[in-house]
Each structure stands twice: as C-alpha cells, then as structure tokens.
C-alpha cells in the first residue's frame, strides 16, 4: 500500500463524500462551461445582430474640426489587418425628377464598381454606375417611382439644368442604406462632384472591414497612422448603435460569466473545506503516526486534483449539454439571426485541465487547516472548536469594499471605462460574502426567533450548528448570496433601464400612427426625404387625422463624434417630447423654438460638454460652431443625438426632409385610418406602424430582455440550489456523530428531519437576505456605472416583486435542497454514527 492507495481506500470507504465533492466540482465546472458557451454564443449572436443592423462593419475617417475636405493626409491603410477596402465618400442632397414628380434624395458619390466587387454594395439587378450619366437607385426608391433598369431620371445640377441619368443598377435598400447612412442613389464620385460643385472634395473615407476583424484594433491602428487633423470613428447611426449594443451586451455577459465563475469558486471551495473538515480525526491520527504536514497536504492536493478531474469531466459534458438550450433561449429572447452554439472540443479539454487546478487551489486553505489540526482535539472525539472572526477576514472585507468603491468612483468620474465595473461588481459580491460571517450570527439569531416554539429544540440545535462555524457557513451561503444578489441586482437594473426607455418612448413617440423610412424604430435615421414635404399635407387631409408632426433625421458629427441630428418642432400646448435635464419644459421649449441646439445626454457625456459649452457640428458638408443650449434624456441612436427645430435644421444644414411622421387621430377614427395610411405608405415607400404595433414591438423587446434575465436567474438558482443541497448533505455527513448521539438520546426521526430542514432554511434565508442587500447595492452600482454610458442617471426603484420572487425561490430551493440530506440523516445507523471515525 502506498499513499495513493490510502486515498483510494478512503474514497471507497466513504463514496458519498467523494461523490458529493466531485459533484460540487461538476456543478461548478458545468455552470461555468454552460455560461461560457452560451455567453460566447450570445456574443456571436449579438455580433450578428449588430452586423445585421449595421450591414458590413466599417469605420470612418473624417477631419476633427472641419466638414468636407480634399481627402489629403490619409496615409496607406489597406495593409492594416482587417481592412478590406478604403472608399472615399461624398454625400449631397439632390433633387431628382421622374416624370412630373420631384424627389429630394441624398446622393452618394463613390467608386460604385469597386464597392460592388468588394461585396459592400449589393445589387439586386443590373450593374454599378461607371459613366457620368449613370445612376444606381435603391430598390425602395425604384419601386416608389415605378422605375426599372435602363429607365432614366433627371438630376438637377448646380448650374440649374437637368442631366439625364440612366438607371444601370438597382441596389438592395439595406445595403445601400448601410453604405450611405440612408442615401437613396449612387453616382460616380467624379460625376457627383461635377454636378453639385464639390469636385475634389469628400466627406469621409470609409474603411470596409473584414467580418472577423476587431473594430477596436483597427480603430487603434488607423488612428495611430493618421495625422493630427484626422481621426477614425465608428460611423454614426446603425454602426454606432450596433457598436454600443455590442459593448453593452459584452459588458452584461462579462458580468454574468464572472459571477458564475465566482459562484463556482465558492461551490468548489466549500466542498473541499467540508470534505477535509469531516476527516480531521483521520488526518490527526495520521499525523500522530508520523505523517508530516507536507505529506498530508500532498495527499490532499492529489485528491483534489483527481476529484477535480473527474468532476470537471462530467461538468464539462453537462455544461455543454445545458449550453444548447440556454443559448437557444437567449437567441429567442434577443431575436438574433443564425444564433448557434459553437461546440468547441477544446472547452472540454480546458475544463478537464482547469477543473483540477481550481480544485487544488480551492483545497489550499482547507489543506492548511487540516495540516494544522490540533492532534489532541481530534483524537479526543471533540467537535472542531468554534471559529472566531479573524482580523484577516475583517481586513479582507474592508479591502474588497474599498476596491469596489474605488473602482466605482473611477468609473463614475470617467477615470476608468465602464467595462471596469465588472471587476468592481465582483468585488462588491465578494465583499458581501466576506462580511457575511460578521452579520450572520445576528441574522441567524433573528431568523431563529421565528421558528415555532414547539420546535425550539430543533431550532436551537440548528442555530448552534450555524453559529459554531460562521466562516464556513458564510462559504455555504456564499453560493446563494451570489445567486440572489445576481438576480436582485440585474432584475432591478434591467427593469429600471427598461422603464427609462419606456418613459422615453412614451414621451418622444406619442402617436396613434407612425410613417417611417424602412428600418426598425429608433434606427430611423435614414436621410431619405423621398416623401417630400407634400406628404404632411397629404396625410393631414385624411379624414380623422388630427395632428401630423414631421421629423427630419440626418447623420452628422459633433465635436468629431458621429451623431444623429433630429429636427422636430415643439408644438405649443402639447406635452414636450423631450425630457429636459436641469431645466423646466417651458425653458426647453423656448430654447428649441429659438433655434437652440439641444444635445442628448449620452452625446454630451462623450463630448464631455454641458449646457452652455460650444461644439463643432457638421452635416452635409456644412460645419458650424454652436453652443449646446440644453441637455435632454434621449435614446435615439444610443443617445448620441442633437435636436433642433426644423426651421433651424433647414437654415443651418439644409435639412428639410420628412423621415418620420407622427400622426394623432380622434379615438373614433384611429382604427379606420389604417387603409388610407397604408396607401400613403405604399406610394412613398414608407413603413406604417400603429401605436398598437409599436407597443407590441416594445413588449416583444422587453419580454425578450426579461426572458433572458430569467434564464440567467434560473441558471444561477439551479447552481445555487445544487450548491446548497450538496453543502447540507456534507453537513449531515460531517455531523453524523452528533446526529447519531441526538437520536441515541431520544430525538425522533421527525425531529432530526426538522433539525436539518431548519438549519437549511436558516442558511438559505440568511444567504437570501444578505444576497438581497447585495443585489440592491449591485443595482445601485450598475446604475452608477451605466451613467457614463447614458449620460444621465437612471432613477432606481425599489421592486418588491423582484425581491419577493427571489426570496420565495430561495426558500423553496433550500427547503427542497434539505430533503435529501434530511432523509440521509434519519437513515444513519446509530452505532455507526456514534462510533464514526
């Protein structure tokens, strides 16, 4: 026999203990693998979703200060890894004539042939324009004008005459829209310069990226090569929104993954601690017989590695099996296209390698404890001595709290990026767990007071078991603390943010019907004035329509940051569609009426400007310097928006398009308006959306978010409940001698069951209460951390339904988790238990 076979004998003698420990590792590894895989799949899903919003990923190069320029100063960029093409672009509002119709449209000047070849511009018919009198039009425009290939359009030139342009190609609307930020026609860049008088000038260079390229890496590489006067930015509109969405999703997924890893760590650490604690006597005896502390440590490390490998193997397989349904659930929730999990065999290999390493690391502290075990105490059949709260623990808690608060302050003040909130969130959770042993005795005593007096013996014994080992109990409850604080924190934060967006929708888009350019709501920034101003009169003339409010949307930049310019009027005596920050509605209305510039809070945050500061704003080749007169809460294009009256937009930038119409009707006429409005929408190639449609869309989005939240919560609770069940099982194993003695002196099986269940419930409720407090702190944390992203604080509401549902779930889980260990406790053989070695 050698020391390894001694280990094997120990396992064979107590297979339950070895299995429970391996099961803990399996649960922990399974949870991490499942979360990791589904988070990876979600990232991929979000990436594809972003791609479908954005089209082909790209970045823009523009001057920092001026608008249009001659394109000089741009070095060679095509050799940067991830860059597929470098395309000069120029945009010009143009007037087209088709038969008797005059259409305002944004024309894009590019080398169309090159773009088609690169796959950036998709043609559904025909070929790219190559000659000065050739033009490519979007499918939507072609349909609305009833034009097809080889038909002609008249293009009003700068000199006043019309040039006849032959339609050589019809482009996929979305592809053209992504390329041109909403433009409807493509003309050769030289020809557009000649027609509009901007020859030799361009608005931007657009870098088309390869799908696998990292936008951040390319941005950094490009900015490094550019001269001071130029910079590379994420394009406004769809790309900007997709970029922000991807960042926000990654932040959330990082947080969830990190929390799962933390939870897994607690499960494995606790299992190892209990595994070792149960064998204190055996280790003491081995030390009396001459085993050195090093030999005991080595033996335990080998054991941890072996159990870790077995557990990790099962956990990896379980995690992979679980990841599929979780990923599908999230895919449905976010409605991402082609959402599939990537089953990477290396994950199993990594898990099997990392599992033992984690188990060995988790065994480090218990092993130290085992090696230091008091030989006398263990040989005398004494229970382990009560734990004292050490100064080390208090110091650890203080350090964790300081770390969390320090990072939070740095994130809120902008010293650190919002992504740094992830480690801060984890530090907060760990700080709560480290604080648990300090508050647990008080909490457990308080809860034990609610145990009915007829069960006072069971309650008192259960309380004694908990109070005797507050540090270990804190580890046990740590799993639940993480699960509950995760649930309550994310539950509050997500619901609060959703409510903030809902409040914005309710204010900004108050209408019975909406006519929009094609594209999702909130992304409707295509500058496609195809409808022309006449559409307002056309819709107003429909019977039952009470008010029609036109909105113009254009792409521009402010202070070098891509933004969306929204031009809309603020009719008197109507609720203001914007939420002012730091001023009254009347003051804001006056500012807009007087032509003032109003910035969304997210844009202001990015530009680091406040009301009264001056910014440079560019759109359609015009650049102005203006004061930001006010700030408003806004979510258009992720909040990177500038508002002004339509009159001001027309005067300053020449924006007089109608990109969206908000239509209000009398209640009686609302339903009957669908048919005439659909006819208008069809004529002008617009999208008709009713208030009910809008609400249904919003509801779907919210349900998706809430569904994803519940999936994450569910996973947390499943892992948490398995952790609690395992811990209570090991508790019973460890206390079999005590339980045997209690039964020997007359405790009934039912009393033993109650003792185990009460102990489990006290553990669960203590963990849950601490978790709820941690969750509320986390929610506050998340709100503060998201402030730099949103630019405005999201008010935090206390949500009893989230707290109560978490509390109910924790009680149910701990009660169920106690059932198996309680049965086991009842079935313990009295003699065996009393003589337990």
């Amino acid at each position, binding site marked *: *026999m*050698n*020391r390894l076979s*001694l280990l094997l*004998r*120990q396992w*064979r*003698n*107590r297979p339950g203990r070895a299995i429970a420990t391996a099961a803990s590792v399996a649960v922990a590894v399974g949870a991490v693998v499942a979360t990791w895989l589904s988070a990876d799949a979600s990232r991929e899903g979000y990436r594809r979703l972003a791609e479908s919003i954005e089209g082909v990923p790209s970045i823009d190069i523009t001057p920092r200060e001026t608008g249009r320029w001659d394109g000089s100063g741009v070095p060679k960029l095509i050799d940067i890894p991830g860059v597929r093409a470098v395309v000069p672009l120029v945009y010009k509002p143009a007037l087209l004539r088709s038969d008797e119709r005059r259409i305002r449209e944004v024309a894009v000047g590019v080398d169309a042939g090159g773009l088609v070849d690169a796959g950036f511009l998709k043609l559904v018919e025909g070929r790219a324009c190559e000659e000065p009198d050739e033009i490519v039009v979007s499918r939507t425009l072609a349909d609305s004008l009833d034009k097809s290939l080889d038909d002609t359009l008249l293009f009003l030139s700068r000199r006043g005459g019309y040039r006849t342009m032959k339609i050589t190609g019809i482009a996929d609307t979305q592809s053209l829209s992504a390329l041109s930020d909403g433009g409807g026609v493509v003309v050769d860049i030289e020809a557009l310069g000649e027609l509009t008088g901007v020859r030799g000038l361009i608005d931007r260079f657009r870098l088309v990226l390869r799908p696998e390229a990292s936008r951040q890496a390319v941005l950094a590489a490009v900015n490094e090569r550019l001269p001071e006067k130029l910079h590379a930015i994420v394009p406004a509109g769809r790309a900007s929104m997709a970029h922000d969405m991807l960042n926000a999703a990654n932040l959330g997924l990082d947080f969830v993954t990190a929390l799962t890893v933390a939870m897994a760590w607690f499960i494995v650490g606790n299992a190892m601690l209990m595994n070792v604690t149960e064998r204190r006597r*055996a280790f003491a*005896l*081995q*030390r*009396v*017989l*001459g*085993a*050195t*502390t*090093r*030999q005991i440590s080595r033996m335990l490390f080998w054991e941890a590695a072996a159990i870790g490998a077995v557990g990790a193997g099962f956990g990896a397989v379980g995690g992979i099996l679980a990841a599929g349904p979780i990923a599908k659930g999230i895919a449905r929730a976010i409605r991402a296209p082609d959402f599939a999990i990537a089953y990477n065999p290396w994950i199993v290999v990594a898990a099997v390698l990392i599992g033992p390493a984690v188990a060995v690391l988790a065994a480090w502290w218990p092993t130290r404890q085992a*090696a230091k075990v*008091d*030989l*006398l105490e263990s*040989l005398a*059949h004494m229970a382990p001595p009560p734990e004292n709260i050490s100064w080390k623990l208090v110091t650890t808690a203080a350090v964790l709290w300081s770390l969390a608060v320090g990072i939070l302050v740095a994130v809120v003040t902008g010293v650190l990026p919002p992504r740094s909130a992830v480690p801060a969130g984890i530090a907060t959770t760990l700080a709560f767990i480290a604080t648990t042993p300090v508050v647990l005795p008080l909490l457990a005593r308080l809860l034990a007071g609610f145990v009915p007096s007829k069960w006072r013996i069971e309650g008192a014994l259960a309380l004694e078991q908990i109070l005797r080992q507050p540090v270990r109990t804190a580890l046990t409850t740590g799993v639940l603390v993480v699960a509950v604080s995760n649930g309550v924190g994310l539950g509050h934060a997500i619901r609060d943010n959703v409510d903030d967006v809902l409040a914005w929708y309710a204010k900004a888009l108050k209408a019975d019907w909406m006519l929009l350019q094609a594209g999702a709501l909130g992304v409707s920034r295509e500058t496609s004035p195809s409808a022309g101003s006449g559409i307002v009169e056309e819709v107003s003339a429909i019977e039952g329509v009470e008010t029609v409010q036109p909105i113009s949307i254009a792409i521009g930049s402010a202070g070098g940051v891509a933004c969306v310019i929204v031009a809309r009027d603020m009719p008197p005596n109507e609720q203001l569609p914007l939420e002012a920050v730091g001023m009254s509605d009347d003051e804001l209305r006056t500012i807009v009426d007087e032509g003032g510039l109003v910035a969304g809070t997210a844009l202001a945050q990015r530009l680091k400007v406040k009301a009264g500061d001056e910014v440079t704003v560019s759109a359609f080749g015009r650049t102005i310097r203006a004061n930001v007169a006010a700030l408003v809460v806004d979510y258009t294009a992720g909040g990177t928006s500038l508002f002004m009256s339509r009159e001001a937009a027309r005067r300053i930038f020449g924006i007089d398009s109608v990109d969206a119409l908000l239509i209000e009707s009398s209640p009686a006429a609302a339903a009957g308006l669908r048919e005439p409005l659909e006819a208008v929408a069809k004529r002008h190639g617009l999208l008709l959306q009713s208030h009910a449609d809008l609400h249904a869309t919003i509801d779907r989005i919210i349900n998706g978010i809430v569904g994803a939240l519940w999936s994450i919560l569910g996973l947390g609770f499943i892992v948490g409940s398995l952790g609690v069940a395992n811990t209570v099982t090991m508790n019973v194993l460890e206390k079999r001698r005590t339980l045997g003695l209690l039964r020997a002196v007359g405790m009934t099986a039912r009393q033993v069951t109650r003792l185990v269940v009460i102990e489990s419930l006290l553990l669960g409720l203590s963990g849950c209460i601490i978790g709820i407090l941690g969750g509320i702190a986390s929610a506050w944390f998340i709100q503060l951390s998201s402030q730099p992203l949103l630019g405005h604080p999201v008010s935090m509401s206390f949500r009893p339904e989230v707290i109560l549902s978490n509390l109910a779930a924790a009680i149910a889980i701990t009660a169920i988790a106690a059932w198996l260990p309680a049965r086991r406790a009842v079935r313990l053989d009295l003699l065996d238990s009393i003589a337990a*070695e």
Partner: protein
Amino acid sequence: MMALVSEAWRLQPIVSLILAEHLTKTFDAAGHDGSPVTAVRDVDLAIDAGEFVAITGASGSGKSTILHMLGGITRPTSGRVMLEGVDLAKLDDDALALVRRRRIGFIFQRYNLLPELSLLENVALPLVFDGVKESACHKAAMEAIESVGLAPRASHRPDALSGGEQQRGAIARALVTRPAVVLADEPTGALDTVNSRHVIELLSCLVKDRGQTVVLVTHDQTTAAAAGRLIRVVDGRIASDTLVGDADDHSVVSSARTAVR
C-alpha cells in the same frame, strides 16, 4: 531540523531515554466560564530505556496530558521534553512528526485504526509515511502482527475484529518501526477483563523480552500493577513516583534520576 534530529541520535550515550523538566500545560478557555485551565503543573520526570512505567490518577488529573507531551502530540506551555537527548520543543511540526513516526509507538484507548484499511495496512501505515518499499512494509507489518498473535486476521478490516484484536493490532502498529518508547493511553480502557489481561501481558513481554520502554496511562490499579514503576498524578502534579516492590517514594526516584542526568 531533520538533520538536528539525526545528529542528536548519533550523539549517544544518553542516560535517560525521556527527560521532562518543569512541564506545564495550560489550555486556553477550557474552563466552564471560558477561563484557562492548567492541566499539568511543573512536572519533572526521567524515564530510562527498558522501563515499564504506569502513570495513574483520577480522571482529569492530567496523566494523559503528560503522556501526550512526552510523545510530542502536544507542546508544553512551558518546560521541555528531551527524547534521547533531543529537545522536542526545538523541532518544527514535520521534524516532530518524524520523531513520532520513528521513535515513538502510540497505543490509544479507542484503538484508532483507520476503518478503510485492513489490519496489515493499518500496521504498515507508519512505514508507508516513511517511504519504505511496499514489500518491506508488508514484511515488517506481518512480523509485528505475528508478534501479537493476529497473523490469521491480517487481511481483515477493523470492523471485522473484536475490541481485543483491534487493540493488539494497535500494539503491532506501535511496534512496527521498532520505536524507542511505546506510549499507551488507557490501552485497556475499552476492553473486557480477559482482553485487558492479554494486552497487559503483551506489553509486559515487550519490556521483559525485548527491553522495550513502555509508558502507559491508566486509572486501573490492576493494569498499573504490571508496571515496574508507578507514577501517581494528582491535580496536574506528580504526587508519588514509586518503583514497584520498593518503599521509596517520589523524592527517592526523582533524586536518583537527577543524579544520573
């Protein structure tokens, strides 16, 4: 530290096998009101090779604590224990484990055999920790088992052995490393009269036939009567130290030991 141990064992001759000076042991917060309890107070003791010493006293008198300090299971609060000239207080935990493994054999009241191992494996355990080859472990363990008359039961697990057999197995384990001293803590406390007699005879034979030093703690006067020297402990102090058959009291023995130091 290991080198220190080896060096000390080479620096023979040593007159007393075990020499304890001013041994005191106080347990923190062991009192009913959480106050410290002094279990052993200023004990001086010398034990020669080949002696069979019985330490007796009432329950709680401190006799087991003295034994534990002699065996390096617990460290004295003050005073020191010299085993074969090596001051145990100067050894770190691992060096002390080495001393226990090679120079001391322990026998406990509750046998303390590991339930997952067979008798043979239990007996071989100290050699396993010493890194001795499996075949050599097996051979030495079998010899020890044979010496206590349990050869036919060598492959049995402890739960298949009677109390007396388990205690004899524990004696075999204590002997397997050929220790300098065997320390037995109430070795007959859990046994019936017949088995108790067998165990005591076995220990007596070890002393007589092999010259093995044995120190046993017991509260049973019949068991203690088998020893050649009786030390009575009262309230943590040595009340008397008597060579069996002599009328000499504690001071006589003590002064004799002091003289040969």
